[in-house]
């Protein structure tokens, strides 16, 4: 009884609580509808395509669709001895269909990737079939085995069986220089052919060092900018913001001019007698060039978050520290530095994320030793056209970046990103 009396009603007689909930829900929907167009747009054109990269990277349906009967018969095969007559016959029928559609070449190439030597024996079999050398009334198994001795080798049939599932993680293993061995276990590529691992390590190394360099150079100037009177700091801020707004390619071009052997930096070194004129060091097309150019290009991304944090630190804190007997160093280390840690975290994570996916600058000033993972992805997208491998490498890189992004989000919050 008492609760009914207490209930407050709005003017139209509906309990306030319900009316308020209704209004809240309406506001929620309103807010969501404003975000919906962009969210929908991004989902269709961006988020789903990234998801599609995943299905592309593990996709192995081509061969599954090419040998449907063979794989069906192979289900009964234990995979230890040579398969039965039925498997051979099914393979023969499947292969004949492929020859009719003129897609047998793709099968040879795909199987050759699984095990070397398939290309020649499938071609040999094709010629036999085209010349009608295979008598369908006789045992197909015997006749195929006569085409080439590899057809009598159980390892080759095991290789075919391995390609049966429509999905494979092989591309991911390849990205880490590993592969599925004949028995299905994971094996390492020979030591002299482990190119991808070198690239991953190099990418990490360059991103890490660029982040460190940016921090070491960015911290002092962010501090100076934050402590100088406004009229000076605004002027100096232009030195940070102008590169930030200038085209990446313009900045890379200027480093190419500066760092070349007859370039300004080498001219200067000769002038002050650091190096001999006929012995100018190579500063481009190697890691030095990549480090120098990337540090300059990413430095504003370190300075801006640091500056916005330092700006909020009251100068009286340092004065208090000093007046209580701390030397300037102790006051800095115990008071100022801990207060700037959020800025350091934001700046370092941002620079690291940007550096790890860098593409243009390393490709132009890095030379062969400046090639990073991104360049490798572009290479497979454009030159080898191995799109599924490019997708796999891209997603491996992406998962790394997303972990850092998640940490960044936890520490700084994406809505706290400051621009300019």
């Amino acid at each position, binding site marked *: 009884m008492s609760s009914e009396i207490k209930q407050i009603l709005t003017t139209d007689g509906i309990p306030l609580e319900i009316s308020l909930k209704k209004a809240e829900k309406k506001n929620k929907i309103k807010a969501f509808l404003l975000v919906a*167009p962009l969210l929908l747009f991004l989902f269709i054109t961006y988020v789903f395509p990234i998801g*599609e*990269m995943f299905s592309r990277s593990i996709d192995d349906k081509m061969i599954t669709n090419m040998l449907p009967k063979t794989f069906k018969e192979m289900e009964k095969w234990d995979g230890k001895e040579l398969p039965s007559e039925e498997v051979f016959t099914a393979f023969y029928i499947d292969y004949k269909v492929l020859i009719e559609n003129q897609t047998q070449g793709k099968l040879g190439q795909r199987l050759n990737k699984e095990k070397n030597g398939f290309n020649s024996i499938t071609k040999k079999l094709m010629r036999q079939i085209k010349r009608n050398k295979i008598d369908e009334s006789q045992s197909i198994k015997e006749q195929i085995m006569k085409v080439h001795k590899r057809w009598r080798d159980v390892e080759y049939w095991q290789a075919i069986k391995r390609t049966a599932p429509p999905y494979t993680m092989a591309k991911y293993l390849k990205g880490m220089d590993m592969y599925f061995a004949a028995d299905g276990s994971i094996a390492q590529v020979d030591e002299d052919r482990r190119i991808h691992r070198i690239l991953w390590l190099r990418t990490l190394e360059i991103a890490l060092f660029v982040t460190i360099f940016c921090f070491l150079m960015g911290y*002092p100037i962010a501090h100076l900018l934050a402590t100088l009177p406004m009229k000076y700091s605004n002027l100096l801020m232009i030195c940070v913001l102008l*590169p930030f707004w200038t085209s990446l*390619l313009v*900045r890379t071009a200027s480093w*190419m001019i500066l760092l070349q052997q007859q370039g300004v930096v080498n001219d200067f070194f000769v002038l002050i007698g650091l190096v001999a004129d006929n012995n100018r060091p190579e500063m481009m097309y190697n890691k030095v060039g990549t480090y120098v150019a990337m540090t300059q290009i990413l430095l504003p991304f370190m300075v801006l978050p640091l500056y916005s944090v330092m700006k909020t630190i009251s100068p009286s804190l340092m004065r208090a520290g000093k007046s209580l007997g701390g030397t300037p160093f102790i006051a800095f280390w115990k008071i100022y530095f801990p207060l700037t840690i959020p800025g350091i975290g934001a700046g370092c994570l941002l620079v690291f994320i940007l550096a790890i*996916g860098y593409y243009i600058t390393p490709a132009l000033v890095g030379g062969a030793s400046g090639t990073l993972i991104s360049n490798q992805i572009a290479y497979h997208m454009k030159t080898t056209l191995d799109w599924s491998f490019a997708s796999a490498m891209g997603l491996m890189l992406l998962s790394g970046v997303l972990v850092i992004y998640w940490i960044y989000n936890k520490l700084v919050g994406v*809505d706290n990103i400051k621009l300019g």
Partner: protein
Amino acid sequence: MALPSYTETRYRIWHYFYIAICTFVFFFLIAPLFVIFPLSFNAEEFLVFSEGMKRLDPEAFSFRWYHEMVYGTKNPWGLAAKNSFIIAIFATIGSIILGTLAALGLSSRHMPYKGLIMAILISPMIVPLIISGVAIFFFMAKVGLAATHTGIVLAHIILGTPFVVITVTATLSGFDHSVTRAAASLGSNPVNTFMKITLPLILPGVISGGLFAFVTSFDEVVVVLFLAGLENTTIPVQMWTGLREQLSPTILAVATCLIILSTLILVTAELLRRRSERLRGINS
């Protein structure tokens, strides 16, 4: 930064060392841009300072490469500049519309899953461009928009919206919502309120986000390299091919023009930022 007279010698030395480091870093940041200017007036065909230029011989300087940039035969810069501007302008308009709407929604305190949605909306800025490029290329190829202006514009809207979302939400964080309620109570409909009250107040944020979106599109090369055909070449794509293949001083003439453009954009952005801070009552 004058030091007080009682400063000990070692801190005095340390202070000058610190100033020296800062000077070096500022020089490191800004100097590379200035090397482009004089070289773009080089009369010779090489990208190094000729002997004549070092002696400041007027003969060694010329407008040759600027002439080449504008009137050169078979030169791609005209088409590239036209494409770049068309694509950047449409991408900016798209980014502003979608980004501002989303920012308005995100700033409402009723917005559900704010953090998650914000993280998704910002992600094109964080995900390495090469991955965005691959994903967008797969999508555009599937819907038949690869090698079209439309496809590139859509791609650049994806990359540009995070900037608009960030700047406009930042502007809205200091926005006094009672003014819109006042407008509503005086009988204004939501569209009218937005156009007459909200938009003028957040305009600095919208424009500075738009500038970011413009620069992002104007400067973007990785995704365009995947999407563009010969017809859709842009200034960055031409610079990229130029820097990789035939290094010609024409590139430096173009680069000089780009630096001038970015200076103009920087000045506009700075003025807007100050105006916006004044409007939001943040004293600096």
